[in-house]
């Protein structure tokens, strides 16, 4: 899975650089993006969770060192908390002691992962006026997907077999919290940039539920959703930034198409992922599927809002939006080769 997500992140960076609006400094964007990609590559090949944490610390300090409205101290807090939680959890998993310590260890790893990505209950501080690179968006949409896959894969090596159910339950619980909170907040919040941020949260909630199900359908749905975050929602958010600043919502057909892609309607990638997730949830515990289906329906008003906030893409942005929608349709219609590749 990690290789697919790394390739997807590289593709998104290429799209963002090549099709960036004229006012954007491409060299700066490319440099910072390549630093992030290098870190993600190192995370993907790191043999242990300890090395992943050290690489994460490097990325956190580098990002906090960027010039921004928020100071170093404010930006480094959330990643350091995340690393500390995972490291303490890992320490508890490694020592010989009572079972309760192992459970605390599992809680620490899940809590740290959620804090690193910036999901509830550890939302990163978000300033809508801040540049995307210095904001929490790279954690939730660029580095986060690969980080989650890598951490969960390594965590399974250290967690005892009987902790698997508790681990999955925590992921599903946090997933439901983020789906519901993200959906309602993206609909009700006043600021459009904040609504986009909450929309990432909602997608991540479904991803956590998929990972928590621990069956093939759940894992496949999680992978498709992660790809739709990296290859779909992130570039669309980048290209909506100018329209968000102009505060000029529009109701053209392209806005409806974007809204449909963001909502996970057929034939876009999100639809296949949602169907797989519902199928997996039905196999494990059908009331979970009912809750997930209700949350997915709730997502429609927020998606329409986000689609309108895109404005009318012109020039390079229009090409970019067309590419993103085409890729999403392809992933939605033919997800099987990708899922087979990811195992």
């Amino acid at each position: 899975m990690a290789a697919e997500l790394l390739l997807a992140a590289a593709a998104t960076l290429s799209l963002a650089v090549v099709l960036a609006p004229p006012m954007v400094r491409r060299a700066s964007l490319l440099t910072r993006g390549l630093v992030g990609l290098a870190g993600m590559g190192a995370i993907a090949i790191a043999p242990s969770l300890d090395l992943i944490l050290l690489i994460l610390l490097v990325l956190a300090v580098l990002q906090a060192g960027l010039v921004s409205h928020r100071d170093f101290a404010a930006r480094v807090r959330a990643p350091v908390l995340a690393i500390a939680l995972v490291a303490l959890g890992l320490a508890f998993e490694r020592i010989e002691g009572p079972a309760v310590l192992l459970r605390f260890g599992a809680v620490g790893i899940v809590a740290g992962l959620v804090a690193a990505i910036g999901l509830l209950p550890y939302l990163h501080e978000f300033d809508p006026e801040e540049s995307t690179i210095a904001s929490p968006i790279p954690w939730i949409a660029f580095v986060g997907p690969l980080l989650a896959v890598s951490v969960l894969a390594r965590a399974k090596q250290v967690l005892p077999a009987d902790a698997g159910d508790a681990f999955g339950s925590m992921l599903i619980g946090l997933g439901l919290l983020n789906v519901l909170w993200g959906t309602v907040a993206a609909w009700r919040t006043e600021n459009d940039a904040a609504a986009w941020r909450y929309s990432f949260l909602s997608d991540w909630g479904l991803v956590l539920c998929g990972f928590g199900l621990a069956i093939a359908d759940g894992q496949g749905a999680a992978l498709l959703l992660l790809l739709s975050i990296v290859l779909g929602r992130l570039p669309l958010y980048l290209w909506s930034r100018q329209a968000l600043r102009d505060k000029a919502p529009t109701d053209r057909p392209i806005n409806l198409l974007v809204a449909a892609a963001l909502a996970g309607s057929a034939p876009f990638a999100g639809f296949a992922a949602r169907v797989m997730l519902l199928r997996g949830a039905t196999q494990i515990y059908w009331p979970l599927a009912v809750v997930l289906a209700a949350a997915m329906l709730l997502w429609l008003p927020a998606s329409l809002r986000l689609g309108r906030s895109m404005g009318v893409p012109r020039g390079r942005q229009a090409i970019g939006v067309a590419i993103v929608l085409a890729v999403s349709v392809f992933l939605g219609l033919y997800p099987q080769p990708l899922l087979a590749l990811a195992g």
Partner: protein
Amino acid sequence: MIELAAALLAWLGAALVALADARRGLALGLALVTIGFAVLAWATGQPVGAIALTLGGMTGAFQCWTAGPAKWGLMPPGSTARLVLCIAAGLLSLWISASVTTTRGAPLLFAVLVVLGLMAARVLTGRDAAVDRAAIACFALALGSSPALASSIPTGPVPYIIGALIAAAVIVAPATLLQGAARSGKDGG
């Protein structure tokens, strides 16, 4: 006995970083944490790791000592809560490592738990970049040493070396690494 003393030294260093607001106190704290983890690494059969930790941590501590106003800044007014935190974190880590667990590397476990906990708390409550950088340096040293807790998995010197590099680089690097417009609209959004 030496391991126990090294673990207590690491606690003392972390407490100094938690209680100090100026460069001399932070530098001394970082140096003590460095010595503590270097001795623990040597005791667990990692001489390369111990040397790497010493080089990285001491480079950071030296840079911390020479940069900024020459003050100790120990326990300024309003730091009672931090003092209580240092004692409570030490006692909790001591209880877990000495009483709750039956693991062999109790001193290392104590040092890792107390330094990670105190430094994370320092970064969460800190508002000064210099203080946060010193705390992150100590944090990196603890993180680099923690793989040795896994008795069943052989750990090489790589985590120690990476932890030491971070500890040195986070203090030596300029305050803003990548200058340029990071305002909305100039860097990709």
